[in-house]
């Protein structure tokens, strides 16, 4: 196993190299360059000045030269500065955007699981009951409602309609609270206020983001449980006289959860990508927006840092998944 992991790690290096080449080429080959916007806002810019700025940004060099200069610095941990934000690209991505994206996506994932698993089980156990039909209906509504639509409807409901109709305080329209960890550490706000403010800001984007997962995973959970419940060993458990509770939670659920675990595992890299549409609707400063803005504004260093990081995550989680298969299934051996 150890030699297998080493071999896979060694294979990752050329894979990541080619991935970074492809990402750099795609980013660099977009039409236009970062000076276009500047030129449009400054009609006085002469061609000499434009050429001087191209040189200052290194845009006068061939793509391969720019790539190897970027690579040479990246392997030393220097990811360059964001052309848009002026900050070191690494600081911008890993200190500002990534933690916020993880707050949003992990909360959303957790809530989706907490809702989808019990509801899916209920739906399977009470197959064809009124509750099952209601859950099935709502699941299909959730699956077929796009995030951008749901987000705006929720915003209208909780920010305008309910407050105007019933006089209740509206939820924030988005963004993040004007609070920093240092406020908590210095005692300027209590833990309750800190969590409360974050909760108020997160409730709408989290529900918007989680709605699709809740709907999909409820359906998966229901299907998986139904399959397991029809297995011989469940019938055997029942015939042994076990209580229905034991049959469900000890025998059926553990096997029924396996497909869900696979699905959740596959969605792990997505936690780091951010959620572009939800982040956009709710003005949430996460990774999705950061990557999108970096590509639109041709901010090479930020785009490269973020996309190569995601490529590393994908490769890494693939390795973790393969190793986990061997851990959970004794029949699989990597030699």
């Amino acid at each position, binding site marked *: 196993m150890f030699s297998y992991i080493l071999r896979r790690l060694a294979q990752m290096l050329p894979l990541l190299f080619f991935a970074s080449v492809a990402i750099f080429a795609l980013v660099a080959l977009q*039409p*236009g*360059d970062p000076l*276009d916007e*500047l030129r*449009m*806002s*400054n*009609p*006085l*810019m*002469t*061609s000499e*000045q*434009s050429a*001087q*700025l191209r*040189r*200052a*940004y*290194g845009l006068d060099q061939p793509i391969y030269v720019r790539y190897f*200069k970027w690579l040479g610095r990246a392997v030393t941990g220097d990811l360059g*500065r964001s052309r*848009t*934000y*002026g*900050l070191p690209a690494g600081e911008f991505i890993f200190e500002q955007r990534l933690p*916020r994206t993880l707050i949003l996506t992990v909360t959303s994932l957790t809530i989706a699981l907490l809702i989808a698993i019990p509801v899916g089980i209920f739906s399977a156990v009470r197959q064809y009951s009124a509750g099952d039909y209601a859950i099935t209906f709502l699941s299909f509504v959730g699956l077929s409602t796009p995030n951008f639509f749901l987000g*705006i409807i929720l*915003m*209208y409901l909780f*920010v*305008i309609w309910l*407050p105007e109709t019933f006089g209740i*305080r*509206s939820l924030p*329209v*988005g*963004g*993040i*609270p*004007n*609070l920093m960890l240092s406020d908590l550490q210095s005692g300027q*706000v*209590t833990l*309750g*206020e800190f*969590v*409360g*403010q974050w*909760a*108020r800001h997160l409730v709408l984007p989290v529900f918007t983001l989680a709605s699709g997962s809740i709907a999909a995973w409820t359906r998966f959970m229901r299907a998986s449980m139904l399959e397991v419940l029809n297995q011989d060993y469940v019938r055997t458990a029942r015939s042994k006289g076990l209580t229905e509770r034991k049959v469900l939670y000890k025998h059926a659920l553990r096997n029924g959860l396996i497909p869900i675990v696979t699905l959740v595992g596959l969605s792990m890299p997505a936690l780091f990508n951010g959620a572009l549409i939800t982040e*956009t*609707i*709710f*003005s949430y*400063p996460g990774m999705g*927006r950061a990557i999108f803005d970096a590509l*639109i504004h*041709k901010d090479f260093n930020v785009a490269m840092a973020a996309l190569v990081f995601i490529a590393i995550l994908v490769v890494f989680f693939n390795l973790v998944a393969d190793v986990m298969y061997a851990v959970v299934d004794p029949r699989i051996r990597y030699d």
Partner: protein
Amino acid sequence: MSRFIVSLFLSLVVGLTFAGPQDNSLVIGASQEPVLLGDLLDVVGTQAIASEVELWIYDGLYHINLDAELEPNFVTEVATVENGRMVITDIGDGDSRVELNLTLRDDIVWSDGHPITTDDIAFAFEITQTPGMPLRSPDYYSRMNVEVFDAQNFRVTLEPAQSSDLVQSPIDLLPAHVMAEAWAAAVGAASALDPDTDAARISEIYQGFMTDFGSSSAINEGRTVYSGPFVPVRWTPGSALQLRRNPLYFNHPENVADYVQTVEYRFITDTNALLFSIVTGAVDVTSSVSITFDQALSPQVTARAADRYDIWFVPSATWEHLEVNQHSNVRQVADLQLDDVRTRRAIIHAIDRQAMVEALFDGLQPVSHANVSPFDPMYNPDVRQYAYDPEQSEQLLSELGWTRAGDGILQRTTADGRTVRFELEFVTTAGNAVRERQQQFIAEDLRQIGIDVRINNAPSSVVFAPDFFDRGFDGSWTGMFMFAWVSSQASSLNQAGYLCRNAPTPANNYSGQNLAGACVEAYDELRDLAVVELDLDAARPLYQEMQAIFAEELIAIPLLFRSNPVIVTQGVVNYVASTFNGGYGYPPARPELVGWAQNGAAVTFDQAAYALAFE
């Protein structure tokens, strides 16, 4: 635990902030967040929202007031020929040297109490003169010299000078006592690199130097000082920037306690979300970088306006227009005779521009007749105006040999015997819904006179890329191109955009902004005289004649000047903007005077004098 639960409940239900007159604060909603603040020399970049926020926390030598006039700010008086502080010397070839002899006030200090002196001017000047510094306006600084005589007196020399140099502060100030040490380190690091092979690395070092004093973390750590009426106290990236009054500022109003004491810029990047914030009263006023024109006129906003907030439309110098390809070597241009002014006149007569602005903008973005804003001191109101007159269009086209074919589309026979149809390519930025609606309106009008419009839109990154934008000569676009030029009062005095020599062609390696290849020699001659005429009163007739030629020859087809919507909660006073105040017209003209009427703040400026109101 119970305390946690109680405070959690309270913050869920009540929230932490109370804005408005109760605590004499102001919340401003913006759809963009500054990248950094204090980059006054534009080393890292230019950003509208950063410039607007900097109005609150930095002051300059001069102030550009609501009427686009210069007022002394940090200096004792504005340099003029009359007061002897401006000396103009003829240096031959029609060029002049201008010396501005200025004196700093002796009662101005940075926010840490350190006096503002000529050291701060000399320091900023040194930065602008550093090789490899990625300045956005290198031309201006390359013509500049600064001499310091003592702590208050200094001279700025511009050679050769241009008229546009005289309508702005000659140079900004940076706090030498705070930044000099880090600057020396940056210069040391850059000097170890090869300027030929490491230009990008050198510019990163200098941009890093600026960022280290202007980023959110730098501001939160208090790494630098400020010169304006407010100082930033806290910047939560992605959320808000809070400012409070600078007690050491020299120009606060009497009874300063009656005016707002704290300001919060709230960054809500999605304009729909920002719209919700406005209608729920979560923000008191909007930034100039805020909801779109359409959104300001949406029923959600207008229906809730009465007794709550005013909706203003501040005219800007952002000019929407149609470039018409006039590169005669392009076959489609020659076939359609776009290089003949009669064709362009036929096109403009066919477009009901007044109906368009009424239908799409409630008339709040007025039709333009040339390329200079009506609020520019050089504006000429008496240029040729083209009314909607499709019959005149058809007559002009008939004179040019066009006749209607069976399908209603115009066609003619060229000199070489080919029959060509009037199929006009029409390009604009895909995804800009407002512009695309204007395009549909214009295309429909042109179809009425027999012009078959072929829409060819693409994202702005494509249409503004050099291989498209600058290659009209090679036929990258062959008909009309709709976009906007953004200008300040200073840039509108330069007027280099439509010079014959600035048409991008292979001969000049496709440089220049005159992308359509328009060429009127009389216009060029006037411009070259106007730009070096430093007596602006004497320059005015030259600029006005240029506008007359522009309209007569239809160098480009003018559509309208955009307006910026600004929403102001009733009770807020002096949150006022005009087309050119402060250079680009960002609100407010005088941040130190913004307040709530119910708290006793006196009304100094009236927005109605500078903007149109939604009724």
